[in-house]
């Protein structure tokens, strides 16, 4: 398949002028300086791998990163074959899961809100490969892949979307409220998760833990006042917080340039340095996350702002077709030229890590895994009526009585 880079590189003079945008954008793409290049397949192999666990070196494209007051991450990245295959398998599985959710929503089995991350897989999978198990992640409502990757399960996420007892929140939270011990959701109020993430980092620092927290938000949320309040306190107190802006160019129906006077989100931390990353290239994504973690935990430099330039193929949510504020051509072009999974596929085939047949087998297995999880989730019953009253308060600290809708309804605890 043709993977033509959609950008031409500007002249040297323009680069020397210090312009943030080192590449010219094609006409149809939204304006407003994305400095990094965003194809998924420009990484070069330096040494061919032999066996699955032997590390080999890749070199990222020099436009993979843009920096703001911090050194550029190393463009040379060490990976192993097995890790690359795992990344491919995870991205494919997450996409399948989101597509299954899409189908279930259209079949009216999922209700309410459902925000899918199709197209953005390199961010969640790349992050998981760049952090430690005991780091913390918090994000907004586009959270399903994170919930799985951070210790959850596909069946648990799907069952939660279906509102069943087997869901990770017992069917009580829904799409936007899924948690694991190292993942604080899944949050519904735009921007509120950012100070909460800084708070988790505060606790990590307080307890002397060698960990950090990735507090994620979108281009739409980036303008929230509380984000800047969190930036300020994180910098003031040197909190190990990585503020991660997942810039998919649209906040619901509003393109970034219509919402943000400064769309270089990685520079908006003021005194906090920042890094803009090609969010469609999983190797770059992983490298950026590893760099950020080292910045905050090993080097104790305090917070960092990370901006992933990425794209969602679907609308804002299942209620939004996603075509009233952007063209179908744009979506199609992104899908065909910048898809993170196809990009990784191209690497794997080019470098001899896997054949097309092997990758097709992984695809097939991913579909089977998701189908099985969906079937298992569908078997799960609705939560029992008693669960209405459960977990309003911490187990064992319930009040005497919780009133129902009228005086004959209610739950007496003691």
């Amino acid at each position, binding site marked *: 398949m043709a993977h033509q880079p959609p950008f031409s590189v500007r002249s040297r003079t323009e680069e020397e002028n210090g312009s943030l945008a080192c590449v010219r954008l094609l006409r149809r793409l939204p304006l407003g300086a994305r400095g990094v290049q965003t194809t998924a397949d420009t990484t070069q192999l330096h040494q061919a791998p032999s066996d699955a666990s032997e590390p080999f070196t890749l070199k990222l494209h020099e436009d993979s990163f843009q920096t703001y007051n911090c050194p550029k991450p190393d463009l040379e990245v060490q990976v192993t074959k097995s890790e690359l295959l795992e990344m491919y398998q995870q991205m494919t599985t997450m996409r399948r899961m989101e597509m299954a959710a899409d189908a279930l929503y259209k079949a009216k089995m999922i209700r309410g809100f459902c925000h899918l991350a199709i197209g953005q897989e390199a961010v969640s999978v790349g992050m998981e490969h760049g952090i430690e198990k005991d780091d913390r992640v918090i994000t907004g409502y586009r959270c399903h892949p994170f919930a799985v990757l951070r210790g959850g399960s596909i069946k648990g996420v799907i069952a939660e979307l279906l509102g069943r007892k087997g869901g990770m929140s017992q069917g009580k939270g829904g799409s936007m409220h899924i948690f694991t011990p190292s993942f604080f959701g899944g949050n519904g109020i735009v921007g509120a998760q950012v*100070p909460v993430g800084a708070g988790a980092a505060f606790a990590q620092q307080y307890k002397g833990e060698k960990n950090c927290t990735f507090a994620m938000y979108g281009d739409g949320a980036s303008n929230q006042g*509380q984000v800047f309040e969190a930036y300020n306190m994180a910098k003031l107190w040197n909190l190990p917080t990585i503020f991660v802006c997942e810039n998919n160019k649209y906040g619901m129906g509003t393109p970034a340039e219509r919402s943000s006077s400064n769309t270089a989100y990685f520079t908006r931390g003021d005194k906090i340095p920042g890094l803009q990353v090609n969010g469609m290239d999983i190797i770059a994504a992983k490298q950026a996350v590893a760099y950020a973690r080292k910045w905050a935990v090993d080097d104790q430099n305090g917070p960092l702002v990370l901006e992933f330039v990425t794209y969602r193929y679907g609308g804002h949510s299942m209620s939004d077709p996603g075509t009233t504020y952007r063209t179908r051509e744009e979506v199609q072009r992104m899908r065909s030229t910048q898809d993170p999974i196809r990009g990784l596929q191209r690497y794997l085939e080019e470098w001899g890590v896997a054949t097309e047949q092997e990758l097709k087998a992984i695809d097939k297995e991913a579909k089977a895994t998701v189908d099985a999880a969906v079937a298992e989730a569908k078997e799960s019953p609705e939560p029992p009526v008693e669960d209405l009253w459960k*977990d309003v308060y911490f187990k064992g600290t319930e009040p005497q009585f919780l009133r129902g809708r009228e005086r004959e309804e209610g739950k007496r605890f003691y």
Partner: protein
Amino acid sequence: MVSRLLLSRFAPALASARRPAAAVPRHAFMGIRRYATADTEQHTMTVREALNLAMEEEMTRDENVFIIGEEVARYNGAYKVTKGLMDKFGEKRVVDTPITEMGFAGIAVGAAFQGLRPICEFMTFNFAMQAIDQIVNSAGKTYYMSGGNVPCPVVFRGPNGAASGVGAQHSQDYAAWYGSVPGLKVVSPWSAEDCKGLLKAAIRDPNPVVFLENEMLYGGHVVGLLASYWQGQVEKEGSDITIVAHSKMVTHSMEAAEELAKEGIKAEVINLRSIRPLDIDTIIKSVKKTNRLMIVEGGFPISSRARQFDYLDAPVERVTGADVPTPYATNLEALAFPDTPLITKVAKRALYRTN
């Protein structure tokens, strides 16, 4: 009973502290350890001291407890409630913040998710409106939405309701606002006993607790009966009318009860103490006895809590703040909140008396 369990857990700590003797030595509940003071000397502390001591004891007991808020550390607290705590525990555990309520309330919630026990002070609850989303949505609802996976053991505390001469933007009573949110616990203590016991219980509680103090009570040696977390407290027994109040309004109601007593009216005053959960049983028990109910609070009328009971001889009398933003002029401000003469007058009305 859960309350007995809680009490037995912190009674030893209370016993070791400097503890005020009750003004009226009555047995209120079973299970409360009565303190044997052989002498008649009154050891009293102010409400402020009680709050300070509660925090100090809990911070000593559990190193995960910390205080965060504006001016709590080096300034010793805008109202001096956290006085001396920075000196004692250091700036790691008593954290001064910039003036960014939404941000630091969110940070407190995140720290609680991650296993610490923050005490988040708002200089007043008027400013907490900036942070109310974090209190209600991030703290209050997360345990339920997560199916019991993510508890949030945070305490939001600070002065609530009327102060004196501070105008409309600084005088609102939020008890009913927070009291309407399932998932939060909302406490509005009155006496020094209430404050010490309830703040310790709130800090140890694994739920998010909104702890509503009152600035005008801080300096007072307000003496009441020993606190039980869940239950309202009958501070004064009577048989003619039940007056239910919380926080500063309890002071006025007690004074009104004295006034009424001079005319032979025996009012029973219930210190609600906990807005959520609300101790309906104590109120019902009292109303069964008196058949008349009066509810006194500083909040706006539409939001005040009123209950219809089957045992009433007269309609429920609701005495509340006036339905206006608090005016600044002293004479007008006095007409915006209930006071002792007003409560006395209305109590008589419930008894069909015209004088």
